[in-house]
Each structure stands twice: as structure tokens, then as C-alpha cells.
């Protein structure tokens, strides 16, 4: 069973390397943001596999934290791409 977890971790890491390739190469900024979003999600599964391999449950709190941080980062980047600023200011008050 431990061997199976190790093989899964290696395959997910290969996928992670492919996402890093897109993050470095991506022609536009949106490509890089998409790659960063996928990297955040892939990191969650890597943490879950690591906690299975080391046999500890303390890593499981990181999963929720990483998913929330990844989502907030994606939204911030998307707003920045769309408007050019992250926080909307209402100047007409």
C-alpha cells in the first residue's frame, strides 16, 4: 500500500512539472494564472498524499488553507486582469 502511495505521489509530481512548464512558458498572463490555479489544486493533492505516506493527520489542516488561498489568489488575479485594479474605489461619493 505504501508503494502505491509513493507511485501516486510520483505521478502527481510529474503532472506538477508539466504545470510548471506552462507557468514559465505561457504566452499571455492569463495562461500563467490558469497554470497557477491548477498548481494550487495539484499542491492540495500532493499534501494529502504526503500525509498518507508519513501517516500523520496534522497535514490535513493545510489542505483547507491551501484551497482557500488558491481560490482567493485566482479571484484577485482575475479582477486585476479584467479591470487593472483589485479593489474597486468609488470616487463619486
Amino acid at each position: 500500500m505504501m508503494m502505491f502511495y509513493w507511485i501516486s505521489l510520483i505521478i502527481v509530481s510529474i503532472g506538477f512539472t508539466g504545470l510548471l512548464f506552462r507557468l514559465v512558458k505561457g504566452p499571455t498572463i492569463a495562461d500563467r494564472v490558469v497554470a497557477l490555479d491548477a498548481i494550487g489544486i495539484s499542491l492540495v493533492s500532493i499534501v494529502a498524499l504526503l500525509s498518507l505516506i508519513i501517516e500523520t493527520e496534522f497535514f490535513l489542516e493545510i489542505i483547507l488553507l491551501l484551497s482557500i488561498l488558491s481560490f482567493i489568489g485566482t479571484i484577485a488575479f482575475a479582477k486585476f486582469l479584467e479591470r487593472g485594479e483589485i479593489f474597486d474605489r468609488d470616487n463619486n461619493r
Partner: protein
Amino acid sequence: MQNSLREERFSIETTIVNILIILLMSTGVLFSLVTALGLIRLPDVYTRTHAASKSSTLGVLCVLLAAFIHFWLIEGIFNTQMIIAIVFLFITAPVGGHLIGRAAYMSGIKVAEETVRDDMEGALKEQKKKLMDNKTTEQ
């Protein structure tokens, strides 16, 4: 060390749970690999968003479910945060993909040459026309 010794005990329940974990984990890992393949091979931001949001969500969902079942049925730890993380990822990952695609279209990134039809262009023109009409009526 004691945990791993306890895990070595061969009982029919452990075998069934291990088969379940192996099935879920294989699906998840396969979909993670498909995500990377799609992000490398597809020609366009929008198609890449499609690959990155859907298949990676399913992949991480299966991996987290396998980890949750392992900790619950083999180690005896019922972790509620895992359930929250699974539901949260299931809701938010496609939303993030949609937002990136929309922002990419708004910032003027071209679609790929193979694209057959582009509905967003007509919708944007209609919206802009409606906005202009509203402005003229206000003045």
C-alpha cells in the same frame, strides 16, 4: 511505527477498504495527469481553462476522498476539515476557471484559429449598445 504494524493485519475489511482507496486514488491521479497534459497540449487560454478547471477538480476530489476514507476506516480518525475542503474545492475551482476565462476575454486575448463560433462577441456588443442607449436617454 505502531500504526503501520496495526495496518499490516490482514482482515477482509481492510482489504475491501484498500481496494476502494486504490480505485479512488487511481482515478484522481489519472485526472491530475490529464490536467497537465491538457495544459501543455491545448492551443488556447480558453481551452486550457476548460482543462484546468474540470479535470483537476475531479482529480483532487478523488484523491482527497481516498485520503479521507483511509484516515476514517483504517486509522480511525474522522476528520471534518477534509469534508469541508472537498465541498469548498468542488464549489470554488470551476468558479475560478470561469472568472479567469472571462477576465482573459475582457482583456482582449485572441481565441485560437480553430475556433468555430464565438458567442461572447455578439453578447458584448449588445451589452455595450444597451449601455450607450441608457446614457443617451439619461442625458
